[in-house]
């Protein structure tokens, strides 16, 4: 079975030549009907990965990759014109601030109709009928009336539903969701997650779910890839990642997500600063914040070289830390 989405060796650089890459040889696959989550803190390159897939990187960004494939389409080498046919029709995207993603001067109905008329070539009346269907499909009450609303009249949850309707209008193979629920409150968040999961089941599409919140991800993803400073440091099934994280960074993230108070009543935070990792030119980028490194006397190894992503524990679970590799070879 071929994967729906394959990324291999994706490297993105921004700024002057020679500066450390924003994304460093990121490889990821998403199978048919699978939801893969990309987790990491701000600036770890999650959104950059998502934008690279759409080929919508900011001007000045330099992108290299061994391959980016969407089914049998070569996204990496597609022309801009071909990309416009891929975007929306084969791969579409949800964003963080749904209300700001809607044009303030056009009605909801007009905007949902745009992909239908442009990508699917429906007539005005066909598109209108389909808009009502799509809006009803994402659970919006009174779709006929709602179609006449403007973005500023919507709540965040409704706006995100509208965005989902727009994203699904072209019946894409892959949905990229870039922190789609971050701006929403928790009850609405749960509904949007359920909606995405329901759509996945109904339409059989795959999804790449970008989030900084392990809690959100655990409820929806089949697999999780953890990113740190532009690299994937651990990858595995949701269960594996949450119950037996291997990389020290993942361990720390899981510990943070538990919200269990320390002895003095404060919550656990990862020591140090993620931005510092950008300056690290060689070796493991997490080592300055890593406790395992000093505990297991791996300083020398960690400083010299960061290992490649290598299998650890069970099948399909891999991590990028000397400690897990040590354990594996020792065991």
């Amino acid at each position: 079975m071929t994967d729906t989405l394959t990324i291999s060796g994706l490297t993105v650089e921004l700024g002057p030549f020679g500066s450390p890459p924003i994304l460093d040889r990121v490889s990821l696959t998403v199978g048919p009907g699978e939801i893969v989550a990309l987790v990491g803190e701000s600036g770890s390159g999650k959104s950059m990965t998502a934008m690279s897939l759409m080929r919508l990187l900011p001007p000045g960004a330099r992108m290299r990759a061994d391959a980016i494939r969407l089914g049998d389409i070569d996204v990496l080498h597609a022309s801009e014109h071909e990309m416009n046919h891929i975007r929306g029709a084969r791969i579409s995207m949800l964003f963080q601030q749904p209300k700001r993603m809607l044009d303030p001067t056009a009605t909801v109905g007009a905007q949902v109709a745009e992909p239908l008329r442009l990508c699917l070539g429906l007539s005005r009346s066909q598109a209108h009928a389909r808009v009502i269907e799509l809006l009803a499909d994402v659970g919006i009450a009174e779709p006929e009336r709602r179609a006449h609303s403007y973005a500023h009249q919507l709540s965040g949850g409704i706006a995100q539903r509208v965005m989902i309707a727009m994203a699904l209008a072209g019946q894409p193979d892959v949905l990229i969701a870039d922190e789609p629920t971050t701006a929403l409150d928790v009850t609405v968040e749960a509904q949007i997650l359920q909606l995405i999961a329901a759509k996945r089941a109904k339409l059989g599409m795959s999804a790449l779910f970008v989030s900084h919140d392990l809690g959100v991800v655990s409820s929806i993803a089949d697999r999780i890839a953890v990113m740190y400073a532009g690299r994937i440091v651990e990858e595995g099934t949701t269960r594996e990642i949450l119950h037996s994280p291997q990389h020290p960074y993942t361990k720390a993230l899981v510990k943070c997500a538990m919200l269990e108070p320390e002895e003095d009543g404060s919550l656990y935070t990862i020591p140090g600063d993620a931005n510092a990792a950008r300056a690290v030119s060689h070796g493991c980028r997490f080592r300055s914040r890593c406790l395992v490194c000093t505990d297991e006397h791996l300083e020398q190894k960690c400083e010299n070289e960061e290992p490649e992503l290598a299998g650890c524990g069970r099948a399909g679970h891999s991590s990028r830390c000397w400690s897990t590799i040590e354990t594996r070879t020792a065991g």
Partner: protein
Amino acid sequence: MSRVENPAVDNPAVDNRASGALDGTVGAVPSPGASRIRGLRRLRAWPWSLRLGLFGVLAVVLVLLATPWSAPFDPALQDLSNRLAPPGVVHWLGTDQLGRDVLSRLMWGGRFSVTIAAITLTISAVFGTLLGIVCARTKGALDEFVMRVSDVLLAFPEMIVAMFLVSILGAGYGTLILALAVAGWTPFARLARALALEIDSRDFIEAAGSLGFPRTFIILRHLLPNAFSPLLAHASVRFGHTLITVGALSFLGLGVAPPDSDWGSMLADGLPYMSRAAGLVIYPGLAIFLTALAVTLAGRGINVRPRRQGRS
């Protein structure tokens, strides 16, 4: 389903979104067909400048449209026995140095002034806006070139540029409009460029790109509508300006030439008789001033309105 007046303050008690049911639908619609009807009902809430300005513009347009039927006299009809008559029952605003009815001449002259200003403005606004947006989108050499050209044009007063072009190309309505358009496109190009750069960085443009919309479509359907209201406001301010420039060129004999006359040339004609019949200068001057004021006020009002509405 409950009706909630303002979606921003949804009441969780009546809105089933609090129940978290997926199969249930969410989001009651505020009121049927909401915004359009509400926009009209809010006429009273419009700023006074918009109401006053629109009233003035409407009045001027109606009077000028009706002129061929409603003007009391032929504007070219001379009555040398009744020269420089004061305002009276027959000639409401008096007669000029050749005994022509001032009111009729004012009405016919306004048709020239306002039409020329409107055509000029439309040409320079459309051309300038498109050029500005293309510049903002392409950046690079074209942008640099256009902006430097506009720098040069802006360094001279619009009047000087227009006078220069008219004197080279010769008088005539075509050249007059061309000269004014060449002198007047720069502010639109600059404004449109700045607006396009700002709007381009907004999220919904990115979202439109992520749906695979072609560039021209995004510009026409998403960029332009969002730049429209400041551009319209600017156009209205420019209209007053252009009207005065047309008047000034005619006053200097470079614009509308006899036998036609506009407000500017009426002003020039009346100048020698200012001490005996001040009305010959006052009325056309007042017509230019009030028309420019009305359009400018309306433009100010347009610019104020959407900002207030946007916060609702």
